[in-house]
Structures are given as structure tokens and as C-alpha cells.
């Protein structure tokens, strides 16, 4: 383990601050020390290279040290953050885990009786002596798809990163490709990583002020909440140089509001999938949702409006699902719909399965949401398709209003606003007012997929 590039890198950064966890901070020397201690504990328990480990943890010193100690052992790690026992069991089973490691507080290591022979991909990783990472598809119900990465490939792009002095705030989840990518990038460059005590907008803003955070990776849904909360006015966010956003389309109107509120912060779009990893991109400007892929490890093409990708860091395959979204040539059909702009720039407009077919005309929820969010009366919204006997489907919207108002009047006002900005078939036919959250724990809109009949 000590001869891996990442362990050497962490050793070089010894005196730098690594992690701020609530009120406690640790330097990189504390990290390497903890990784070594855990590595020894795992070895002593009999955990070996190629073993599949379900890892319950979080972005804490223990959680991160356990992850890297397992990588160092060439184990195959399935990070799990689900809190319900049934969801955890589903994931442990999908991964065919042989060990359960808990690294939230005290380290606990327990063997799990194997129910079946190891999967071919697991055998292959064991033979090549490469560590592995198992991630799960999010969002859908039922058994999550378990996908397996070769960690050597996944970490390779970070090996050439140079040291920087960056302070990054992480609140994305521990089992998510975007969160892990931010973590790996930060650690490769010797960054200080700040983990806020909670994901509440005010707590996040206070952490930015206190620790002079420079980079905030977030989802558009979170950024909308952040603006709504008034946290940006209450705290000094002048240290914030970059906000990166991704995981769902950014409404143009929201991007504009963020820029107004934080004029000195660069707003950069990121792009990635659990299957192909995060791809380096260039945003045309802070005011633009246009991006260009600029990554030597990734190829892309657009087929019938859908983005297809092929990357050096893509998954070996799924453990419990067929490779139907990969072509024989290794292209991954992302399901993301894109429009081509000039000079090789692209605009990501939405997910293929979320596209609403209104009498043959296609509507992407994000363009309607962007128009709705222009209205001061609308705090948040969610656009989806519902079956309609005349047009097959129609556009529907759930709206979180800013203040109490007469629903009938507000509905009329919203439709009037939409009619001015959108083609008639894109105007929401049905509008319902909700006050509960319309996003999940990943701060990503929970869109009900349009039903096909």
C-alpha cells in the first residue's frame, strides 16, 4: 500500500489540513496514520485482496481512512449510506458482500456468509490485484443495479494532478460518484476538505464563512434552496471562488439568480455518470449552461439526440443486471438528451425517460421548470408527464409557492406566464400546489417517470 501513488501523496502533504469535521480538524498525517491502523486491523481479521466489503461510512476521518485502507488491501468496496436495514440488506446482497465494515465511529469488521460464488468481474479484479468499487444506481425502486469499477482506472486521472491550496466543502453522499470524485480530486491535490455538520443551507453557508471555502460542489436543487434560505445575504461568502453544479439540468433562470447573488463566483457545470465516471468539461461561461467535453480519457457521440460515452474509467459491468445500456463497442447510452450548439458546445436538456410526449411533440421538464422558476411566486417546482386521453400525455407541475395565496388565481397567473414563454403544448395543464419537499436526500428532483400506456 505504501508504494501506491496516493499513499505517497498523502505522506507528502503530512502537515496540511486534510479534513474539518464539525469542530475537529485533522491533517494528512492523521489520515495516513489512520489508514495504516485500519489496514492492519483488516489484515488481522483475515480480510484479503479480492474480498467484497460492504462499507458503512461517511465523509469522516474514519470513513475515508477505511475506504483507502481497503483500496490498499486490493479489496472490492461497496460504500453504503442507506439508513433503512432493508435497503442496506438489498445492497449487501446485490454486491455479494463477504464482509461488513462499519466505520462511522469505532471500526467494526464482521464476515458475512457467502451465498454464491464470486462474480466473474470480482474474480478478474482479484487476479489483476486491482482494488474495486461497487456503486449502486439511485432513484429507482426495487433492487438497485450494482456496478463495479476498477479503482486503478478510476483513480488514474488524479495521479497527475498537481498540489493546490484549495478548500472544498463536501456534502454529497459517500456512495455517489460525484461525491467520491470530489473527494479523490481534493485528496490528490492536498486540499482541505470541509464537511458541514448538516446539509441545511445556513449550516453550509456558515461553514463557508468560517473556513473560507473556495469550492462548493452542489446540485441545482440545493442551490435553489440555498438562495431561498437567505443564507447568502447573512454570511460572508466572499471566499467562494467556484461553484460546480451537476447531476440534473440547471434551469437558466436559476443560474441567472445565482450569478446575481454571487457575482464574483465562477459557476461551472460538471458532468458524469456512475457508469463512466466524471468527465472533465468546460463551461462556456458562468452565465451559460453550455458545456464542452475536454477529457483525454473520454470519447462521446450523439445518437438520435442522446449522449453516448466511452471512457477509460468506465465500469467493468453490472453484477446483477445485463449490459443493455452498453453497445458491443463499449459505448454507454447515458439516457441524457443533448442539443448541439456552436463550437462543439452542448446543452444537456434532460433524461430520455423523463421526456413528455404531448401528441407527438416532445417536452423536456427542465425547460418548463426554468420558465416556472422565473416567477417570484414560485419557490420550487417539479414538472412531469401524466396520461391524457386526448394527447397521450400532458405536462403537469407541482409547485411550491413562495407565500400563501389564492390557489385559483395563482394557477391562472402561472399559466399566463407560461403561455407567454412556451409553446401551447408545453404549458402545464395540471398544476398542484405542494408544500413538502420535491427532492430526495441527494438534493435532486424526484421526478415521477412518465407512464407509458
Amino acid at each position, binding site marked *: 500500500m505504501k508504494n501506491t501513488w496516493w499513499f505517497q501523496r498523502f505522506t507528502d502533504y503530512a502537515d496540511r489540513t486534510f479534513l474539518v469535521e464539525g469542530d475537529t480538524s485533522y491533517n494528512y498525517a492523521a489520515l495516513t496514520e489512520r489508514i495504516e491502523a485500519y489496514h492492519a486491523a483488516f489484515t488481522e481479521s483475515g480480510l484479503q485482496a479480492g474480498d467484497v466489503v460492504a462499507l458503512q461510512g461517511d465523509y469522516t476521518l474514519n470513513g475515508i481512512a477505511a475506504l483507502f485502507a481497503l483500496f490498499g488491501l486490493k479489496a472490492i468496496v461497496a460504500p453504503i449510506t442507506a439508513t433503512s436495514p432493508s435497503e442496506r440488506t438489498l445492497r449487501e446482497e446485490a454486491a455479494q458482500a463477504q464482509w461488513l465494515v462499519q466505520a462511522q465511529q469505532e471500526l467494526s469488521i464482521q464476515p458475512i456468509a457467502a451465498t454464491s460464488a464470486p462474480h466473474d468481474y470480482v474474480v478478474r479484479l482479484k487476479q489483476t490485484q486491482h482494488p474495486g468499487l461497487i456503486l449502486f444506481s439511485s432513484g429507482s425502486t426495487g433492487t438497485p443495479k450494482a456496478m463495479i469499477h476498477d479503482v486503478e482506472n478510476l483513480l488514474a486521472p488524479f495521479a497527475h494532478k498537481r498540489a493546490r491550496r484549495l478548500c472544498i466543502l463536501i456534502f454529497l453522499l459517500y456512495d455517489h460518484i460525484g461525491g467520491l470524485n470530489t473527494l479523490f480530486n481534493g485528496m490528490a491535490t492536498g486540499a482541505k476538505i470541509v464537511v458541514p455538520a448538516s446539509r441545511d443551507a445556513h449550516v453550509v453557508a456558515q461553514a463557508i464563512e468560517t473556513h473560507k471555502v473556495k469550492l462548493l460542489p452542489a446540485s441545482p436543487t440545493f442551490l435553489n434552496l440555498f438562495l431561498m434560505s437567505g443564507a447568502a445575504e447573512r454570511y460572508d461568502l466572499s471566499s467562494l471562488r467556484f461553484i460546480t453544479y451537476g447531476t440534473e439540468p440547471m434551469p437558466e433562470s436559476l443560474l441567472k439568480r445565482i450569478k446575481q447573488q454571487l457575482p464574483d463566483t465562477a459557476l461551472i457545470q460538471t458532468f458524469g455518470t456512475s457508469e463512466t465516471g466524471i468527465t472533465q468539461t468546460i463551461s462556456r461561461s458562468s452565465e451559460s449552461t453550455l458545456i464542452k467535453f475536454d477529457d483525454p480519457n473520454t470519447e462521446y457521440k450523439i445518437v438520435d439526440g442522446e449522449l453516448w460515452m466511452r471512457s477509460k474509467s468506465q465500469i467493468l459491468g453490472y453484477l446483477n443486471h445485463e449490459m443493455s445500456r452498453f453497445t458491443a463497442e463499449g459505448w454507454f447510452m447515458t439516457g441524457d438528451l443533448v442539443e448541439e450548439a456552436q463550437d462543439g458546445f452542448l446543452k444537456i436538456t434532460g433524461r430520455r425517460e423523463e421526456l413528455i410526449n404531448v401528441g407527438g411533440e416532445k417536452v423536456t421538464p427542465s425547460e418548463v421548470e426554468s420558465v416556472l422558476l422565473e416567477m417570484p411566486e414560485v419557490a420550487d417546482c417539479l414538472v412531469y408527464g401524466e396520461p391524457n386521453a*386526448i394527447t397521450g400525455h*400532458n405536462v403537469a407541475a407541482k409547485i411550491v409557492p413562495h407565500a400563501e395565496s389564492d390557489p385559483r388565481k395563482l394557477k391562472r397567473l402561472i399559466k399566463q406566464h407560461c403561455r407567454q414563454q412556451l409553446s*401551447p403544448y408545453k404549458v402545464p395543464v395540471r398544476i398542484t400546489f405542494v408544500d413538502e419537499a420535491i427532492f430526495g436526500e441527494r438534493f435532486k428532483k424526484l421526478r415521477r417517470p412518465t407512464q407509458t400506456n
Partner: protein
Amino acid sequence: MATNREQVLQIILETLHELGEDLELPELLTADENTRLFGARSALDSMNLVNFIAEVEERVSEDIGVDILLANQNAMSMTHSPFRKVASCTDYALTLINKEEQAAEA
């Protein structure tokens, strides 16, 4: 007590007047029982018909307290579409409402 035809007609006409204002369709402002809704020489195109129907369904639900589905497969396959005129639409909506009301009483 069963909903009467007058109540339903009023909901439909109010909806049409409002749509007339919002969509700038003057013929809807003077709509009455004989106004043609959908088909040749009618006031509404298909998207506006969809909006009209959704609005009537919502108002029936809010004002009368009964949930109906005006645009259903049955209505679509009827030889004489209930959406040709305001009068036929009113009759059709009333039938659906009364059916729901009877079901609730039984």
C-alpha cells in the same frame, strides 16, 4: 342532493370565459349552450380543449366535491363526441357527476 344541470353549466361557462380572457379568444367570452367546443368551426384547438377539460375537472372537484374524468376512453370513442358543444358537454359531465354521487350514496 344531486347536482343539477345549472351548476354544471355555470362551471363550464365560467371556465370558457376565463380561457377566453387568457387566450384572447373573443368568441369564448360570449359562450353559451350552443357554442361549438371542438371540431369544425369550433372555438378550441386540441391543446386548448385539453386545458378546458382539466380546468372543468378541477372545478367540479373543488366546487361540487366529486372527482370525474371527463376525457376518458369512453368519451373519446363515442360516435357523437360530448365535446362538440357546450350543451352536450354539460350533459355528459352531469351524467358522470350524478353517477359518482349515486355511487357515494349507495
